[in-house]
């Protein structure tokens, strides 16, 4: 085993690696310029003209979630919690993604809304839209800033770039390609990022496995490590909380698999937006389902490197050693010669930018449609809103840079904020699911339900952080907070519904289950009937695969 000091993080990059990185940046900005020529209306800018096939929107969907915080963080979790980390990918994502595609996407897509808050306005009222839009916009800017700060920290450690250089350069690139090409540019770049990220990580995994003696050798060494036998199981140790994750199966199934996961995947506009840009209802429904398949396999390039790093570097995550988050960069440094090293660095940078671009393109849409057009000035011609969308992009990126520098000064506060956003969507999911299946639910029930649910999440989480009461691990605390938010939202929604007036059925056509909009024509293309384009069949396939993948690691 090797013992490493923090200064060993510096990668030995040369001109070849920089060439690979520079080529990538050039293509990213080039896509922005090329996409710009196709923009003629606000629908082109904010919804990519609603013309994309499912494989593109699907890969963009998975890429929007594949930020570097996610990659480095999940490798860190792999080293810290072992194979239980796969719960975040399988039970914690796949069922919700399939549910979004099969059940919810037809409502989002066919109602022709631009955003999740706009759907809330149609189903409930403008006040609900405004609350959700402002909460979302603020969250996206803060998350973009946190992303940017994390990127700068990693680049400083790996390449020695000063913090502000990384922040300005990557913000400028994201700004350029989204201002130019809008959502289509963001989505095309996300597809490209997906392949570059994977191309950069696969060599790390292969060489790491060769070093530790393949899967068998890795298993043996993990057993001998601090994780022990528990690091190789996913379910069999969850009867109690005596396992690396500190969570029981109830917490994993209901907390992670239901409340947190369904909240995030089905109502987070930065994800749903990818589906809204698809060319027809079927492609929109397939978007999260196509994304589910790569999602199933991503643990191969995150959790495995985490475990390899754990058994190779004796002081990983220990006092004086490198942080768990540096598991992947440490392996890059250990194994990759110049060339492939450049691809891996490019992949990491690409994933930081993918995360930030998803935040920014979600932000500009919500700001333009839901805040400005909906509540400030709605009567302008279409070109006005395209211009406003571009200005909002600039504003969002500048605010993100500001947040990044604030984060540099108060990194603890940022950690808490980020944890808060993790369950921000739980109350929203309760509102959606009740509103979708219960036509009686009233507009004001939507509004007060979300407010009460959000406050409940804060009411649990902030005292926990302040040490007022103990909830075990951070993970458990987020389960409890999200669960409370969900339950309070549901109860408040039902109570308010009983004392307020519902919307007339006519206004709810196409927005509630069972009330179909007869005026909507079928938009399916020839070929959509084939089994390999059926959301239900492909979705079921993803669920079966997820269950099957657990079998060797019970």
């Amino acid at each position, binding site marked *: 085993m090797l013992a490493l000091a923090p200064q060993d993080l510096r990668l030995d990059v040369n001109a070849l690696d920089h060439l*690979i990185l520079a080529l990538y940046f050039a293509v990213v900005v080039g896509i922005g310029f090329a996409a710009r020529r196709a923009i003629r209306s606000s629908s082109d800018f904010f919804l990519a003209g609603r013309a994309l096939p499912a494989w593109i929107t699907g890969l963009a969907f998975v890429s929007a979630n594949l930020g570097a915080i996610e990659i480095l963080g999940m490798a860190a979790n792999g080293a810290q919690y072992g194979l239980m980390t796969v719960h975040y990918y399988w039970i914690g994502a796949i069922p919700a993604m399939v549910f979004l595609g099969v059940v919810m996407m037809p409502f989002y897509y066919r109602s022709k809304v631009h955003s999740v808050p706009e759907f809330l306005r149609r189903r409930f009222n403008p006040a609900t839209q405004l609350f959700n839009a402002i909460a979302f916009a603020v969250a996206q800017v803060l998350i973009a800033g946190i992303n940017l700060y994390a990127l700068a920290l990693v680049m400083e450690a790996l390449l020695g770039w000063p913090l502000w250089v990384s922040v300005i350069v990557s913000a400028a690139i994201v700004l350029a390609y989204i201002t130019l090409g809008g959502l289509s540019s963001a989505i095309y770049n996300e597809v*490209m990022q997906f*392949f570059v990220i994977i191309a950069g990580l696969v060599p790390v995994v292969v060489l790491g496995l060769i070093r530790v003696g393949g899967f068998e050798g890795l298993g043996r060494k993990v057993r001998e490590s601090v994780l022990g036998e528990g690091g190789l199981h996913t379910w069999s140790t969850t009867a109690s909380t005596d396992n690396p994750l500190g969570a029981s199966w109830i917490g994993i199934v209901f907390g992670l698999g239901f409340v947190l996961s369904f909240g995030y995947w089905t109502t987070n506009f930065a994800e749903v937006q990818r589906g809204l840009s698809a060319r027809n209802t079927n492609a929109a429904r397939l978007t999260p389902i196509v994304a589910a398949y790569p999602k199933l396999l991503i643990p191969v390039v995150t959790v495995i490197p985490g475990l390899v790093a754990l058994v190779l570097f004796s002081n990983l995550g220990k006092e004086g050693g490198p942080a768990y988050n540096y598991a992947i960069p440490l392996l890059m440094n250990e194994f990759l*010669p110049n060339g492939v090293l450049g691809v891996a660095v490019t992949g990491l940078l690409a994933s930081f930018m993918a995360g930030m671009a998803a935040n920014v393109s979600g932000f500009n849409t919500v700001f333009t449609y839901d805040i400005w057009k909906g509540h400030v000035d709605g009567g302008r011609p279409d070109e006005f809103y395209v211009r406003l969308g571009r200005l909002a992009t600039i504003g969002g990126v500048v605010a993100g840079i500001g947040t990044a520098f604030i984060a540099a000064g108060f990194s603890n506060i940022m950690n808490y904020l980020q944890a808060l956003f993790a369950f921000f969507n739980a109350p929203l999911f309760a509102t959606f699911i009740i509103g979708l299946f219960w036509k009686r639910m009233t507009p004001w029930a939507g509004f007060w339900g979300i407010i009460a649910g959000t406050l409940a999440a804060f009411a649990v989480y902030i005292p926990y952080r302040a040490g007022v009461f103990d909830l075990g691990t951070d993970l458990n605390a987020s389960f409890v907070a999200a669960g409370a938010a969900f339950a309070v939202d549901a109860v408040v929604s039902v109570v308010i519904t009983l004392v307020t007036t519902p919307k007339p059925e006519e206004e709810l056509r196409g927005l509630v289950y069972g009330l179909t909009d007869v005026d909507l024509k079928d938009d399916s293309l020839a070929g959509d009937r084939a089994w390999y384009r059926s959301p239900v069949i492909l979705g079921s396939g993803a669920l079966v695969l997820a269950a099957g993948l657990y079998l060797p690691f019970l």
Partner: protein
Amino acid sequence: MLFDIRRILGGLFAVYGVILVVAGLLDGAEEIAKAEGVRINLWTGAGMLVLAAVFLLWERLRPKDVPDPSDESSGDA
């Protein structure tokens, strides 16, 4: 309709593939030893060339992103 992303992906990975294959052929003993005795640049480069070929062939065989050219809805190029 926008330009075809498959051509960009094919192009980028073709260039990356060539760069890595050349780098892999020029790699000395030190680089190979670092990567556990594997010519990793060469292999990754070859993999990228295959990926590039798949995207470019796919684009050639199915030029449009629609299943059936007859029902393409938008008329603009």
